[in-house]
C-alpha cells in the first residue's frame, strides 16, 4: 500500500516534465506575447531575460520545477494573475458541476446496469444498452446543445446557457464557492433553487457521458456475478430474488469502482466541452480560453492540475478497493 503512495512521486514528476517540455519546446517564443510587435532587438532581449528565457533550457526547467514546488504555477498572460489563484477561484464551479454529474452517472448508471443484467437479452437490456451506448457515442457538446434546444428554446422550462446564476442575480457570500452550499448557508432558498435550475442541463449533459461506461461495466460485471457458483448456491437455498441480486451486486461492484475512477478523467475532458456550451465559468472554460489565446502558462497549469487530481482519484479508488474487497488486503 505504501508503495502505491510512493508511486505518485515519479508520476507527478513525469507529468510536470511533460507539461513543461510541451509548453516550452512546441509553443515557440513567448516573447512575442509580451513584447510589442515593433520592439527592437534590445527590448526583446530584455523581455526574454525578464521571462528567464535567455538561460539554457535545462535551467529553465529547474526554475519551473522550483516554482511548482513552491505552488507557483506561473502568471497567466490573459488575466495577468497567478494561474494558481485563477484556478482556485474557478475550481468550485467545475467541482460542483462534476460532482453532481458523477453522482447522476452513478445513481442512474448502476441501477440501469443491474436491470440490464437481470433481464439479460430481453427488452429492458436492449433499451439500457442502446441508452448507455448513446452516452458513450455522442459528443457531450452536442448533447448539451440538443438539451438546450429542447428544454430552453422549444419548451422554455429551464434556463438558458448564462452560467451559474441567472443574469443580474447576485451570488451568495462566498464560503465554499459551491453555490448550492453557500446559498443554503446564507439561508436563501430561492437563490438555491435558481442555482439548482442552472445546474440541471449542464450536469445532465456531463452525467450522461459518465453514465454510459458505468452502466455498461455494471451490466457486464453483474452478468458474470449472476452466473457464478455462489449465486447458484443462493438460488438453491431459496433466497428471494432481491436478496440474490444484492449479493451479486456487492461482488460485481469492484470493476464498477475502477470505471468510476476512470470516469473522473472523462469528467475533466467533458467539463471543457460542457462549460463551453453552457457558458459555465469553471476551469474547463479557463483552459479553453487559454488555448484560444496561446496562454501556455495557464494551459500548463490546468493540465497539470487535472493530471494530479486524476492521479489522486486513482489513489482513492485503490483505497476504496482495499476497504471493499477483503481479498486485496492480504
Amino acid at each position, binding site marked *: 500500500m505504501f508503495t502505491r503512495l510512493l*508511486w505518485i512521486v*515519479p*508520476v507527478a514528476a*513525469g*507529468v510536470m516534465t*511533460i*507539461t513543461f517540455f*510541451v*509548453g516550452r519546446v*512546441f*509553443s515557440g517564443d513567448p516573447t512575442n506575447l509580451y513584447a510589442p510587435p515593433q520592439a527592437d532587438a534590445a527590448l526583446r532581449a530584455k523581455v526574454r531575460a525578464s521571462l528567464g528565457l535567455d538561460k539554457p533550457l535545462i535551467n529553465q526547467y529547474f526554475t519551473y520545477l522550483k516554482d511548482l514546488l513552491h505552488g507557483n504555477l506561473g502568471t497567466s498572460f490573459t488575466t495577468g494573475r497567478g494561474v494558481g489563484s485563477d484556478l482556485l477561484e474557478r475550481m468550485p464551479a467545475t467541482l460542483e458541476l462534476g460532482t453532481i454529474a458523477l453522482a447522476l452517472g452513478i445513481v442512474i448508471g448502476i441501477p440501469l446496469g443491474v436491470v440490464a443484467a437481470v433481464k439479460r*437479452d430481453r427488452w429492458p*437490456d*436492449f433499451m439500457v*444498452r442502446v441508452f448507455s*451506448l*448513446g452516452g*458513450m*457515442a*455522442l*459528443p457531450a*457538446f*452536442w448533447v448539451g*446543445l*440538443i438539451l*438546450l*434546444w429542447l428544454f*430552453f*428554446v422549444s419548451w422554455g422550462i429551464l434556463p*438558458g*446557457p448564462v452560467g451559474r446564476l441567472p443574469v443580474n442575480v447576485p451570488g451568495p457570500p462566498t464560503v465554499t464557492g459551491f453555490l448550492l452550499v453557500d446559498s443554503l448557508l446564507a439561508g436563501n432558498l430561492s437563490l438555491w433553487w435558481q442555482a439548482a435550475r442552472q445546474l440541471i442541463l449542464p450536469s445532465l449533459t456531463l452525467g450522461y457521458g459518465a453514465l454510459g461506461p458505468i452502466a455498461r461495466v455494471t451490466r*457486464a460485471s453483474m452478468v*458474470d456475478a449472476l*452466473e457464478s457458483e455462489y449465486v447458484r448456491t443462493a438460488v438453491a437455498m431459496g433466497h428471494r430474488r432481491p436478496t440474490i441480486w444484492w449479493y451479486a451486486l456487492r461482488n460485481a461492484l469492484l470493476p464498477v469502482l475502477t470505471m468510476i475512477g476512470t470516469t473522473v*478523467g*472523462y469528467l*475533466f*475532458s467533458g467539463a*471543457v*466541452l460542457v462549460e*463551453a*456550451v453552457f457558458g459555465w465559468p469553471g476551469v474547463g472554460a479557463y*483552459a*479553453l480560453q487559454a*488555448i*484560444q489565446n*496561446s496562454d*501556455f502558462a495557464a*494551459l*500548463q497549469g*490546468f*493540465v497539470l492540475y*487535472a*493530471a*494530479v487530481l*486524476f*492521479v489522486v482519484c486513482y489513489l482513492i479508488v485503490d483505497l476504496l478497493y482495499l476497504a471493499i474487497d477483503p481479498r486485496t488486503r492480504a
Partner: protein
Amino acid sequence: MTPTTRSAAGVAEPSGSGGDTATPGPVAKTRRRPPPAGALGFRIGVGLLAGYLVVAIISYFWTPFDPLGVGGDVLVKPGTPYLFGTDRLGEDVFSRTMVATRYDLAITVASVGLALVLGTILGTIGGYYGKFWDGAIMRAIETFNAFPTLLFAMLIVSAVGPGILNIIVVLAFVGLPSYLRLARAEVMSRKTWQFAEAARMVGCRSWRVAFRHLLPNSIGPLLAFTAVNAAWVALITASLGYLGIGLQPGVPEWGSMIANGQDGIITGQWWVSFFPGMAILGMTGSLYLLGDGLGDRFDPRRRR
C-alpha cells in the same frame, strides 16, 4: 480494412450462437435465448461503417451542392432542395456533412492505425524481451495515462498548430501507450505456452516467435480494443473541431459544423448542429458495436 472485417464477420456468427458449450446447436436452443445482441450489433456496425466509407468516397465526385458554396439561401429549413437545410452562410448542411465524413474518417483511421502498428510492435518487443524495457516503459505509460486524453491532445495540437497531419500524429501518440500496454500483456501471457516453446524448440529465431507465433494469437483483443479506441478518437477529433483547435477554420468537419450551428440553436435553427451530431453518433456508435462484437468473439470470458 475490408478483408479483415469480412473474415471477422464470417467467424463471429457461429461463436455467437454457440456459447461456451462444446455442442452449439441444441444446447443453445434449450436455454431459449435469442441470439446475443452482440452478433446483430456487430453486423450493424460493419454495415454502417461501410456506408460511411462509401459516402466519403462519393463526396469526392458528387455532392448535391457545393460544400463550400457560400451565398445560397441562408438558414433554410431541412426540406426538398436542401435535405439538411442550410447554415447561416448559405452552405448546404447535407453536402458539408458528406464531405466532413472524409476528414473525420481519415483522421480516425489513420491515427488509430498508426497507434495500433507502432504500439503493437513496441509492445510485442516489450512483452517478449521483457525486463530491460519493462520497468521504464510501464512507468512512462502510467505517466501518460495520468493526462486526461482530450486535454493532452488539446495541449499538443494547439502547440504544434492546426492541420490534419498534426492531429493524426498527436492522436496516434496519445493513444499509443494503451496499445503498447495491451500488446505487451497479451504477448507476455502466452510467452511460455507450449506452442511458443515448440516454435523455439524447432529453432525459430526469437523475433519470429514473438511476431509470427505470439502476436497473431494476440491480434483479436487488440482489434477489439482498436475499434473501441477508434470511437474515442473520432469523438476527440470532433471535440477538437468543436473547440476550433484542430483544423483550419472553414474546413467541413462534424465538430466544427456543430460549433457553427451553436448560435442557431438558441434562435431555433436546430438543423445546422443536429445533423453533424447524428453523423458522429452513427460513426462512434458503430465503432462501439464493432468493438463489442470483436470483444465477444475474442475474449473467452465474455463469450457466452
